């Protein structure tokens, strides 16, 4: 039996089929894509946040010659400290920072006949500029007074946590952490409370007009987050039509941010809670009735715990959306600084990229924590869902139904009111002096901000994002879900595709600057182009799209691939003929999700657009910044019209598709 032992001992090394090889190749391509789209940019940003630029005055030396030979060698640090021009705060700067050498000589005059000498005591200490390029060598450089005024000392690069220390020690910056947390927590409490009862009314009562209420509640998804802020300016601003309601409080600040944030995050919370409340077990409620449990007790002991995971998930989603949002605080935040606006100010206002990176990392922390908690909760919820339960059919109850109807009515009126305000404002000739209607505000070409071209760019960007994004994301999900073997590769990709969910738009945008604008990056050429906007947007919304696609793929019979292989069909043929047609509804969902988000997003792309690729949402921001608030409202409304139109088209398409495929879908 020596032969038997030999057979048993030798492990089988599976031969790869052509399909396996192509799929592995595709997986490597996908992994490279994700590497470039998310991993490397984040890495560059992280390393940037540890880069510090400081002046190394101790290694700069001067000599002066007043016509009687060179005087003693003067050390810049000693000299500067004695004069009081070198302080600890002034030592820290950014990579563009320059220090005038003449500051060390209070009696300096560029007309004086005095000669100066400057040199580096060490070679690796930042150097200095004399007219032309930087000087790093340690020889004396001699200059006239006239030239000495152009001598600048350069900072040296070092790595360490100095930026973080500086951040914590700068009250104006560090206080934003508190502000951001305050806004996020307050908004989350309000939105979850409102959305929970709204979702309860939609799922657990026989309230009238349910469909209408559902549609209204989802409207904010179609608008950029800038829109509610603009509406609030019209409602409660200095010339707001109902500013008296604030009783003397100013809308510019936390109040405005909270209301605006609540508006646009409401549907996100609602969708999660409606799902959570829809999957309840009727038997529990029947038992409660049989035991004569009071309504309140039933609610507290059955309804709330049943929706527990949905609630936790919704809380973290809203919290993350608010803390990472840039649009609302930018428009209506006034002097109230939050983390997202700080990044913008540091980068766009002060060109302090290192500090921008530090704030980004700070902003990344709560988002990552929320992300991890949400992942854990999601995993538990799956187990909950798989238990077979009897769906609950709500029973009419006049008092509850009418009460809930009124409640939902009030919420719906507020939502429609905020949207309607922006709509109305966009049509007013000259608020508040000439209230006649006109389309003048839509004449974007006569205004700064990008004009109709920006709108066209947005449409193009959204289309590219939807088309290429869906193709990449669906194929990627297919590889992960249906690939054979290569567990390691699939595991890596599975992790990478979840990553974008934890990265706020502002952070992603800034990370893209660091990575793609790096002179050594061979992909540098896409910087400032449409391509980088599309890439950034696809990445920003990758995870949710991937999960939608993966869910649809999971529902397909896992043996399709096995049968195809036995029939010698290459996998791409089965992919095209079976997988894609069967998953078409999910594919449409993904593409519409990408399109609408590409239309409304502002946080990531605000760092990446160029004059040729201004987007509609960025135009809203810029026009609002410039005080053209009515045109800003008009452009925001253009985004709403477009998103709504596309959604409607999607609904019709899906309906048509369903009719066409009814024969094979019915069961």
């Amino acid at each position: 039996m020596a032969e038997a032992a030999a057979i048993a001992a030798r492990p089988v090394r599976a031969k790869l089929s052509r399909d396996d090889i192509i799929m592995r190749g595709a997986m490597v391509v996908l992994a490279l894509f994700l590497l470039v789209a998310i991993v490397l940019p984040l890495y560059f940003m992280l390393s940037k946040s540890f880069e510090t630029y400081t002046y190394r005055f101790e290694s700069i030396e001067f000599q002066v010659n007043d016509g009687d030979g060179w005087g003693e060698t003067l050390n810049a640090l000693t000299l500067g400290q004695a004069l009081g021009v070198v302080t600890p705060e002034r030592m820290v700067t950014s990579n563009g920072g320059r220090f005038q050498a003449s500051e060390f000589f209070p009696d300096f005059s560029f007309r004086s006949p005095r000669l100066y000498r400057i040199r580096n005591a060490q070679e690796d200490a930042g150097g200095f500029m004399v007219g032309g390029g930087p000087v790093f060598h340690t020889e004396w450089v001699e200059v006239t007074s006239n030239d000495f005024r152009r001598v600048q000392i350069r900072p040296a690069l070092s790595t360490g946590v100095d930026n973080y220390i500086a951040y914590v020690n700068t009250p104006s910056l560090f206080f934003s952490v508190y502000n951001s947390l305050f806004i996020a927590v307050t908004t989350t409490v309000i939105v979850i409370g409102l959305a929970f009862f709204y979702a309860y009314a939609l799922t657990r009562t026989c309230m009238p007009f349910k469909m209408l209420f559902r549609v209204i509640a989802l409207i904010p998804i179609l608008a950029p987050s800038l829109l509610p802020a603009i509406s609030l300016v019209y409602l409660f601003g200095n010339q707001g039509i109902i500013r008296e309601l604030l009783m003397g409080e100013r809308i510019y600040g936390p109040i405005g941010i909270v209301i605006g944030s609540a508006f646009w995050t409401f549907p996100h919370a609602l969708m999660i809670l409606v799902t959570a409340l829809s999957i309840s077990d009727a038997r529990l409620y029947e038992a409660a009735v049989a035991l004569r449990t009071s309504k309140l007790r039933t609610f507290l002991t059955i309804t709330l715990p049943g929706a527990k995971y949905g609630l936790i998930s919704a809380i973290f989603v809203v919290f993350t959306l608010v803390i990472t949002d840039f649009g609302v605080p930018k428009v209506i935040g006034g002097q109230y600084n939050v983390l997202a606006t700080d990044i913008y100010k540091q980068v766009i206002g002060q060109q302090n990229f290192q500090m921008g990176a530090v704030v980004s990392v700070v902003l990344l922390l709560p988002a990552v924590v929320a992300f991890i908690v949400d992942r854990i909760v999601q995993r538990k919820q799956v187990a909950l869902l798989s238990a077979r339960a009897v769906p609950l059919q709500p029973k009419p109850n006049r008092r509850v139904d009418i009460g809930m109807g009124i409640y939902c009515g009030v919420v719906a009126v507020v939502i429609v009111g905020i949207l309607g305000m922006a709509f109305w404002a966009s049509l007013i000739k000259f608020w508040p002096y000439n209230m006649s209607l006109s389309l003048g505000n839509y004449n974007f070409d006569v205004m700064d901000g990008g004009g109709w071209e920006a709108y066209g760019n947005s449409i193009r960007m959204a289309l590219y994002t939807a088309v290429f994004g869906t193709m990449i994301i669906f194929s990627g999900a297919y590889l992960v879900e249906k690939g054979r073997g290569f567990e390691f590769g699939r595991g890596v990709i599975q992790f990478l595709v979840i990553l974008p969910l934890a990265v706020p738009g502002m952070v992603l945008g800034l990370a893209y600057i660091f990575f793609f604008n790096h002179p050594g990056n061979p992909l540098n050429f896409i910087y400032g182009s449409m391509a980088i906007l599309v890439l950034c947007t696809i990445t920003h919304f990758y995870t949710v799209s991937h999960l939608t696609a993966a869910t649809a793929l999971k529902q397909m019979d896992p043996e399709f691939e096995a049968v195809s292989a036995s029939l010698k069909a290459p996998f791409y043929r089965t992919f095209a003929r079976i997988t894609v047609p069967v998953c078409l509804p999910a594919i449409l969902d993904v593409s519409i999700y990408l399109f609408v988000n590409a239309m409304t997003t502002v946080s990531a792309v605000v760092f990446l657009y160029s004059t040729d690729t201004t987007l509609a949402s960025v135009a809203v921001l810029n026009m609002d910044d410039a005080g053209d608030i009515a045109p800003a409202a008009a452009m925001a409304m253009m985004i709403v019209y477009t998103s709504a139109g596309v959604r409607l088209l999607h609904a019709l398409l899906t309906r048509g598709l369903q009719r066409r495929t009814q024969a094979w879908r019915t069961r």
Partner: protein
Amino acid sequence: MTTDKQAGEPYLRIAHVIKKFAAFTALNDVSIDIDEGEFVCFLGPSGCGKTTLLRAIAGLDIQTNGRIEQGGQDISALPPSERDFGIVFQSYALFPNLTVIRNIAYGLENRKLPRAEIDKRVRELLELVGLTGQEDKYPAQLSGGQQQRVALARALATSPGLLLLDEPLSALDARVRVHLRHEIKQLQNRLGVTTIMVTHDQEEALTMADRIVVMNQGVIEQVGTPMEIYRHPATAFVADFIGKMNFVDGTVAAAGRVKLGEVELSCDTDGMASGAPVQVAVRPEDIIARGVAADEANAFEATVEDLEFLGSSLRVDLAGENLGGQRLTADLSVNLMRELALEPGHGVTVRIPAERIRLYAAGGT
């Protein structure tokens, strides 16, 4: 596929196959030879590794160790697309968006055959599985049994050398199942295609298979024809799993003699040492009560404890001092009951033919 095998060589040879999932061993040194044209059933309780073995043969989950040869060629490492087989899954895995003919033609279209030839072959198959007239329906519009036939036709379309069926009938209701058993068997006879069917239903295996491979916990317990498996179960597990079987404790009294309770019976002790504790296995239908004289070989007195009426037969529980507190169940005909006037509490003389008694070492079931 060309077969360059010599006469007498098996068509499929599975040698020392081991399959591990991490630390768990799902198949432990499995070897079987299957001849061309055979209908073989893998039978065993759920989780014993039948599907794992089938998937290894198909190349869908390649074994960790061991060799598989088909038609004289070592296919151990080949991916499914380079092997020669058709497969039907329990779920059928019919493509939901393709009509019946498109489903059946799916494999033919990959071979770039002329349209007319494909159509001809599809018609043939439709007729073969009795689905003429259903060609333009979608799978969701068919009954379970019809879907099953489509899956079968699709697997057979490319005339594979090997047909693999993984619990093909278990999703159907009982009546359709019995009907389809028969049909599949006939189809297999007509086409002569070597077939392996996985099932956990012993009746299915006994009625359909030329040979049965009984598996348990990743190893093969016995391979044999249905009759062999039923008549001469090699292990206590097989004896228990297939058909109904009495197990009573006994000891080997001497070579060719076993003692259970007070009774000593002759039987084949197969070299077991005298005094060894054994399990004595007897099928209910092998206990004879008609015309048994008390002094006949292997005859003994027992007491009727309980009677269960099963329609054409009776299930009779026998006990009594002779059996030492143990119990035997016998299948007796209703006529016999009337003849012997069997009633609970009455005595009856029964006989167990020596060749129908099987002994297994005590401790295993």
